[in-house]
Each structure stands twice: as structure tokens, then as C-alpha cells.
């Protein structure tokens, strides 16, 4: 039986410790609700990879005994492998409808962990162009508009840099901005396989235009060399993406084969925790799905 004074004393000590812990802000993330030991692998979308990678690193730092390996390989790889049971989590920019067979697709459980945005960028030498409307985008990407001077820029040929047709980025852009119009092919077009390769290609090619993820645009190595455009007059920012005024955005999915258990469930829960949703996600230029 604790007498009143001692109880108050220990409460005071607890309060002081709590205050001290809170005031050492940014030193280390507070331990997630549950730490489970084991080993899982996540694979798939390269657009989500920076986020899942960073979250995994944070998680294993606090939960020693857990191993979360993150692989790329593309959304298709992620979907195939999680459906086939080779990995526990499949990261994807697209839903499995139309890709996986229906029975396989029905097995998968969707966990939406973030919203990711894309921005239309050009080479720095396309001066005077800071905004493109949806219609201008359609004209440019279908090959109808061939020169930057037709949209207020310098007299330079437009060079279109696509992602592969199979990529989630491209299909999202095509659906949300181009309205599924047929894209141009031929000598003024290049295809590069991923955000990094696209960025390299844009910076080395005069008059180039492409679509890259927010994280790549905001990366301090790339931003000085790129000209980021507004879409329909709306700035490409995380805030605008979160408030849905900027429309070139899509959900980031993490799929599991059936309901997740064990470390998989724990890690997915961590992805939805304030540590990730509140701190990590905005710092990497994604928008949270849990306010």
C-alpha cells in the first residue's frame, strides 16, 4: 500500500521523465506499438521504394530482431510475387485488376499507405513555360504540338521522354491527364526505364519534357537542373496533392496475400502510424492517408 506522498512522488518522477523524453525531439522515433521478430520481404514499385525503404530502416532500428528487406523490380513484379507467395508485401502503383487473373487478384488485400504525386518537368532551357493546361498536355504528348514556341516557350523542338508503357506512372498520367489519348511515337520520343534515368535524360536533352515523382523533383541534386511546371495553374506540392486540388496523384498500395499476420501485420501497422504518416511521409514528398 503506497501512501499518498510516495505515490505523488513517483508520478512526478514519471512526469519528469516523460517531459524529458518528449523534449529530446528528433533524437529517435518512439518505439512502434508492437515489435515482432522475423523476416519479411517487400518488393515492387520503384515509386514507393524510397518510402518503404526508409520506413523499413526506421522500423528495424527500433525493433532489432526484425528484418525487412525491400526490393524494387516494378509494380508488376510486386503483384506477381506477392500473389505467387515469394514475397510477403507487394508494393504497387496500380491495382491488380486487369493485370492478375481474377482469382489471384481476389486473394490480395490492399493497404493504401500514401498518396504519391507526379510533376511535369522540362529541361532548364525551356524558358518562359511555367504552366501547362490539361489540353496543352494532351496536344504535346500526342504529338500535335511539336515546338515549345506554340505554348509560350523558345523555338525548340519538344522531345518527349516517356516511362515504359507498362509502368504505373505512365498509365496514371495517361488516365488522369491525357484522358487515355494515344501518345506519340517516333523520333521525338525517348523511353527511359525509371525516375533516375528519366531525370538524367531530361537534364542532358535540350527541349525535353517528362513526368517524374515528387521525391525526384524535390531531391536537391535534381531540382536546380529542372523546370517544374504547374498543372492547370496549380502548383505541384504535397499540400495541393493532399487537398486534391492537384490532380496528378495516385494511391500507393501495399498488397498482401490474404490478411497479414506476424511481422507483416506489424510492419503495415507501422506504415500507418504517426511516425510514418506524420513525419516520414511528408519529408519524402508523399501525402499521408491518415491525418
Amino acid at each position, binding site marked *: 500500500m503506497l501512501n499518498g506522498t510516495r505515490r505523488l512522488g513517483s508520478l512526478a518522477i514519471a512526469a519528469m521523465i516523460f517531459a524529458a523524453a518528449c523534449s529530446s525531439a528528433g533524437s529517435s522515433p518512439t518505439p512502434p506499438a508492437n515489435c515482432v521478430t522475423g523476416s519479411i520481404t517487400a518488393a515492387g514499385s520503384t515509386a514507393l521504394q524510397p518510402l518503404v525503404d526508409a520506413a523499413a530502416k526506421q522500423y528495424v532500428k527500433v525493433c532489432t530482431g526484425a528484418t525487412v528487406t525491400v526490393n524494387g523490380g516494378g509494380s508488376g513484379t510486386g503483384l506477381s510475387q506477392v500473389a505467387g507467395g515469394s514475397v510477403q508485401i507487394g508494393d504497387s502503383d496500380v491495382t491488380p485488376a486487369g493485370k492478375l487473373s481474377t482469382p489471384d487478384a481476389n486473394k490480395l488485400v490492399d493497404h493504401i499507405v500514401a498518396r504519391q504525386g507526379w510533376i511535369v518537368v522540362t529541361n532548364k532551357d525551356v524558358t518562359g513555360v511555367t504552366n501547362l493546361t490539361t489540353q496543352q498536355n494532351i496536344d504535346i504528348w500526342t504529338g500535335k504540338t511539336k515546338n515549345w514556341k506554340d505554348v509560350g516557350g523558345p523555338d525548340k523542338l519538344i522531345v518527349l521522354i516517356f516511362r515504359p508503357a*507498362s509502368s504505373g506512372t505512365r498509365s496514371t498520367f495517361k488516365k488522369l491527364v491525357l484522358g487515355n489519348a494515344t501518345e506519340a511515337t517516333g*523520333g521525338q520520343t525517348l523511353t527511359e526505364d525509371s525516375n533516375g534515368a528519366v531525370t538524367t*535524360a531530361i537534364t542532358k536533352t535540350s527541349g525535353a519534357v517528362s513526368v517524374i515523382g515528387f521525391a525526384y523533383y524535390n531531391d536537391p541534386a535534381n531540382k536546380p537542373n529542372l523546370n517544374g511546371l504547374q498543372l492547370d495553374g496549380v502548383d505541384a506540392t504535397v499540400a495541393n496533392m493532399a487537398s486534391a486540388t492537384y490532380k496528378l496523384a495516385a494511391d500507393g498500395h501495399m498488397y498482401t496475400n490474404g490478411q497479414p499476420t506476424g511481422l507483416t501485420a506489424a510492419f503495415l501497422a507501422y506504415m500507418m502510424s504517426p511516425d510514418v504518416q506524420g513525419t516520414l511521409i511528408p519529408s519524402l514528398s508523399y501525402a499521408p492517408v491518415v491525418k
Partner: protein
Amino acid sequence: MAQISTTNRAAGLRATPSLAERIDLPQRVVFAAAASMIFIVVLLLAFIAWQGVQLFVKDGVPIGQILSPTWQPDSTSPDRNFGLLPFIAGTVFVTAIALVISTPLSVGLALFLSEVAPHWARAIVQPALEIFVGIPSVVWGWLGITILVPFLSSTFHDDLVLSLPIVGDVFRVPGFLTGFSWLAGSLILSIMILPTITSVSFDAFRAVPQELRTGSLALGTTRWQTIRHLLIPSALTGVLTAVVLGMTRAAGEALAVQMVIGNSPSLPAAITQPVTTLTSQITLDMGNTVFGEPWQDALWTMSLVLLIISITSVVLVRLLNKRRMAS
């Protein structure tokens, strides 16, 4: 001296075979090891062929469609078409120009090493070639992106025109819009296949008997005349073998090529334009497609085409060698 060492070692052995030998175990084991390669090839062919025909068998695409120039594998598109012609053509074009650039250089180098170079020069150049072989393809691709592509795009930005006074433009090659192009791919490939063509040609030249050379020189010809009129014709099948092997290597190269050719899935209008090869398209799309969907089945068909190309060239090399043995 060799006999003495053998005697020392053999003296310690029994003259009677062990149990393992009596049941032929060693021979069976080494045979299994060597024959495993047959097993591997059969397995490889079987799997790739099985996956490759799924496009026709499971998805019902007519075989002729793959020869069409329209590549539109998107399931949401109304004019869905699995035309592989841009990729087959791309592979052929890029490989052909790579051979055009590399063959004279490689054969010249082989001649240099076999006929002209003094011993010390050969001792420097041959290791250099072996190091060339060892440089990984990602490194070649990176060199291509960081050095070759910007160089091409900035130096040859303008059209290359040959015009005559009255006739007008006789010859016009559009300038590089971007450095990512057919030519960039061929240049990188030509350096990558140089060691292959050189070493096989070198072996071919070395195999020509010395008497032919001395006989020719004794008749008063110069060395170049000997090379041109005697050596090259005698070693011709060997040189052709070298070219076929170089071609196989070039057609099969994936990463280095994918980084520099621009990957535009359409037939290029000029050497300065982007192009796509079978290997680069597979690299681009494989990760984004799902196992079992028609788009990925088309990629497996492309792998089957690559496999057919490489087996064909092996057969070709054998035929050439048989001709050489017969002559």
C-alpha cells in the same frame, strides 16, 4: 625430368584398381558433370520455348501478328497489337552497324597482333584486350550515358547534309536531337564486341601455316600483299566465325544498350534517332508486367526470338568450321 616426377608419384600407387574404379564410378561422375550441360540446354530451351509460345497458345494471338510494326500491348487500348517488328528491326540495325564499325578495327587489330607487332607490343596489347572483356556492361552503359550521349548530342546537333549545286540535297542525316540513339548503341556495342572478334580472328590468322607466308615473301611480295592476297583469304572462314560470334554477343547485350539507345518503340528513320532492341524492351517492361498477362507473354516471345537467334548463330559457326576443316 617429367618422367622422374611421374615415377615418384606413380611408385606410391597400387597397381590394382580400387572398388570405385571397378564399378566405373569416376568415369560416371565426370561424364555426368559434362553431360549436365546437355541437360541445362534442354531445360533452358524447354522453359523459354514454353513461355514464348504462350502468347499464341494461351492468349490466342495469331503468329503473323508479331511481324507487324505496331506495338500496342495495352489491354485498355482498342487497337491492341503485339507487333515485334520495331524490336527485331532495332536489334538487327544496332547489331549491323556495330559490326560495320567493329569488324575492320578488330580484324586490323588481329592482323597487327599476329603479323606486325613485335613481341613487346603484343605483351601489352593482349592483356589490354583481356581487361576490355572484363569490363562489365553496366560500366559501359554508364560511360555511354555520361560521355558518349552528351558528346553526340552537342557535337552533331545539326543535320549532316551533302548537297550538290543543281541536284540539291543528295544526302541528309538529321542531327542528333538527343544523344540517345541508334548510333550511340552501335558505338558502345562495337567496343564491347571488339575483343571477341579480335581474339577469334587472331586465332584464325595464327592457324595459317608459316610456310605460306615465307613462300610468298620468297617470291618477292611485300608483307601487306601477303596479308591481303594470301592470309585473309586463307583465314576467311575463321574471320567469318569471329564476326558471327561478335554478332551474337551484340544481339544479346541488354543493359549497356538499354541505357543509351533511347528506347522508342518504333522504326527509326535515321541512325541519329532513338531505337529499341528486343533486349532493351524486355528490360524495360519485365518488372512492370505481371506473370501470365499477355503483355508479359509477348516479352517471353521476344526472349524466344533471342534464343532462336543465338542457336542459329551457333549452327552457323559450326557450318563455317566444317567448311574450314574440309578445305
